[in-house]
């Protein structure tokens, strides 16, 4: 009998459903290692109560972060948060992250609350995020989370897989966000419908972890069920730090304990077989990519930055689970240092977590941003889905580092959202129009030279 190679998704869902082997198309009852919810925990609790049982089955598997509207902007939001805290106390949920700690996907990553090869299901469409570490992350609905709290398992269809290969190195000023926008623009917003999207190639492994995190996050906009990047030493080292802290293995400085954690993570990782079957394969040469922008009101409505320069903006938003990390703030600061945000334009910066805010403060980024005239928000989702903290006025144009630009997304139906990388958002804030950071950055030096010549 011929034994077919398996994809990551087939291996991950076989493990999660306790079977030796499963194949694409099969429906399995999977038991997730982690169950995510956020501000919607209160609504899920109400559904859970309808089931007529008292206790959550495995409270240690729950991960809850308040991030969608934090701190509470209205009494209603505050009541919602209060209900979540009551639930957490009543059910003894240990892995709960309060207002201000940050966006769920960033916090769970920083805290190693999900590990390579594990299954995480979450009441959030961007649960695809955990593919950055080689975990299987998929979004589900609220009723399904209530069901998981009650029974610990849920039916999942084993997805077909798509393989995306990125070869070579990205040119300076081109980011993993640009790669994602290019890819989604090329194939379409439904190109990955129901699929597990695997990323391979030296262009991926050469990326920093923060750059990698953008990719599975953006795959929610491709219709993917989950996304996957093969984990490597960088991933294991990153996760071993919080794991060591939490598990209290050995002395805090012990290299031995850390090494054993790293080899443990490695041995639990899952990798696709070389002869696995894919629904489609796409190959990109990183050196040919350029900065890209998604235009209103679709993520696959994509143009090169060069074609959109000069469009007037009123608001620039740097943040979200897609691009609110230290590397993103660094890229923005490289553009903003010593410059001012244009008159008639405002810039909002919301670090994705308190750890990022702390590090950005330590590095002096927050001073650079404030000196440039930016506003700093509390770590969380901010105005991404229109709850608060930067909702646009009617007719206004926002350029944002977020993952979604649907009509009304930021709370105002008749407003436009362009999606771009952090440096492009920062450059546009300085110019007051969509601008190329390579030109704005160069401007500093040229301006100085110009003044001297005069």
């Amino acid at each position: 009998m011929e034994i077919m190679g398996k994809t990551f998704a087939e291996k991950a869902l076989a493990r999660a459903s306790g079977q030796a082997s499963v194949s694409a198309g099969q429906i399995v009852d999977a038991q997730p290692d982690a169950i995510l919810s956020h501000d919607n925990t209160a609504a899920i609790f109400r559904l859970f109560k309808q089931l007529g049982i008292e206790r959550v089955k495995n409270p240690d598997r729950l991960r809850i972060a308040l991030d969608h509207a934090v701190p509470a902007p209205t009494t209603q939001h505050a009541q919602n948060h209060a209900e979540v805290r009551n639930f957490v106390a009543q059910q003894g949920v240990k892995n709960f992250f309060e207002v201000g700690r940050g966006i769920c996907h960033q916090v769970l990553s920083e805290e190693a609350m999900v590990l390579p090869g594990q299954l995480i299901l979450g009441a959030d469409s961007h649960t695809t995020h955990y593919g950055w570490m080689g975990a299987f992350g998929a979004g589900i609905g609220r009723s399904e989370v209530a069901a998981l709290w009650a029974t610990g398992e849920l039916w999942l269809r084993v997805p077909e897989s798509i393989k995306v290969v990125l070869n070579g190195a990205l040119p300076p000023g081109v980011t993993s966000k640009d790669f994602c926008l290019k890819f989604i623009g090329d194939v379409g917003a439904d190109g990955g419908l129901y699929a597990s999207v695997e990323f391979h190639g030296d262009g991926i492994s050469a990326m920093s972890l923060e750059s990698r995190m953008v990719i599975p996050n953006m795959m929610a906009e491709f219709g993917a069920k989950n996304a996957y990047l093969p984990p490597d030493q960088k991933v294991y080292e990153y996760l071993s730090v919080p794991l060591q802290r939490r598990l209290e293995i050995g002395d805090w400085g012990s290299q031995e304990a850390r090494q054993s954690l790293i080899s443990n993570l490695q041995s639990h990782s899952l990798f696709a077989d070389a002869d696995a079957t894919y629904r489609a394969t796409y190959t990109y040469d990183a050196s040919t990519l350029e900065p890209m922008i998604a235009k209103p009101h679709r993520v696959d409505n994509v143009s090169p930055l060069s074609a959109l320069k000069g469009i007037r903006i009123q608001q620039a938003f740097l943040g979200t689970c897609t691009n609110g990390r230290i590397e993103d703030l660094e890229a923005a600061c490289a553009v903003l240092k010593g410059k001012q945000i244009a008159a008639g334009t405002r810039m909002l910066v919301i670090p994705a977590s308190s750890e990022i805010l702390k590090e950005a403060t330590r590095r002096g980024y927050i001073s650079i941003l404030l000196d440039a005239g930016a506003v700093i928000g509390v770590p969380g989702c901010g105005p991404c889905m229109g709850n608060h903290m930067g909702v646009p006025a009617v007719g206004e144009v926002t350029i944002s580092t977020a993952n979604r630009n649907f009509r009304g997304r930021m709370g105002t139906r008749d407003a436009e959202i362009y999606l771009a990388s952090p440096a492009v958002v920062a450059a546009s804030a300085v110019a007051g129009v969509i601008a190329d950071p390579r030109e704005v950055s160069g401007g500093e030096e040229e301006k100085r030279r110009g003044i001297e010549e005069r």
Partner: protein
Amino acid sequence: MQITGHAWTYGDDVNTDVIFPGKYTYTLTNINEFAKHALEDLDPDFAKLVKPDDVIVGGKNFGCGSSREQAAVCIKLSGVRVIVAKSFARIFFRNCVNNGVLPVVCPEAVAAIKKGDEISIELDQNIVRTPAGDFVFPPLSPSVAAIIDAGGLIPMLRRKLGTENLPLPEMKFGGGD
């Protein structure tokens, strides 16, 4: 069993932000208000004029975007029991099933249906009847169909857990994206 109503037709990639805007996810807590906002940023007429058993007809990737279950719930509360589309976004598909709304994948029917057409869905035969002809759609897998038959995931689980006779706590939504 047959469901007959008029068709509300829309294009490709109808997303959950236009079906149920995110700004309502934590502020609209009274479930009785949900139907009034169904498809608010897509078609302001829909909520005003929709009749029970009307059918929403969409293009490809219907329901893409957020996992917010209110998108499926507000459609259900507007009286719609079936959505016919070329394809569905996966979380929205699950949310429909889990709330007892039937997602029908039938690109041929979508191409044939015009706005306002009277159409019927023959549930037992998996047929969409339209003025332009009848179209067969693939049946759901039995385990998924069982959820719809039970009226959704929560009622099905109540049966499974043996709690179906316990009184339901007051049903209130709100909070969730």
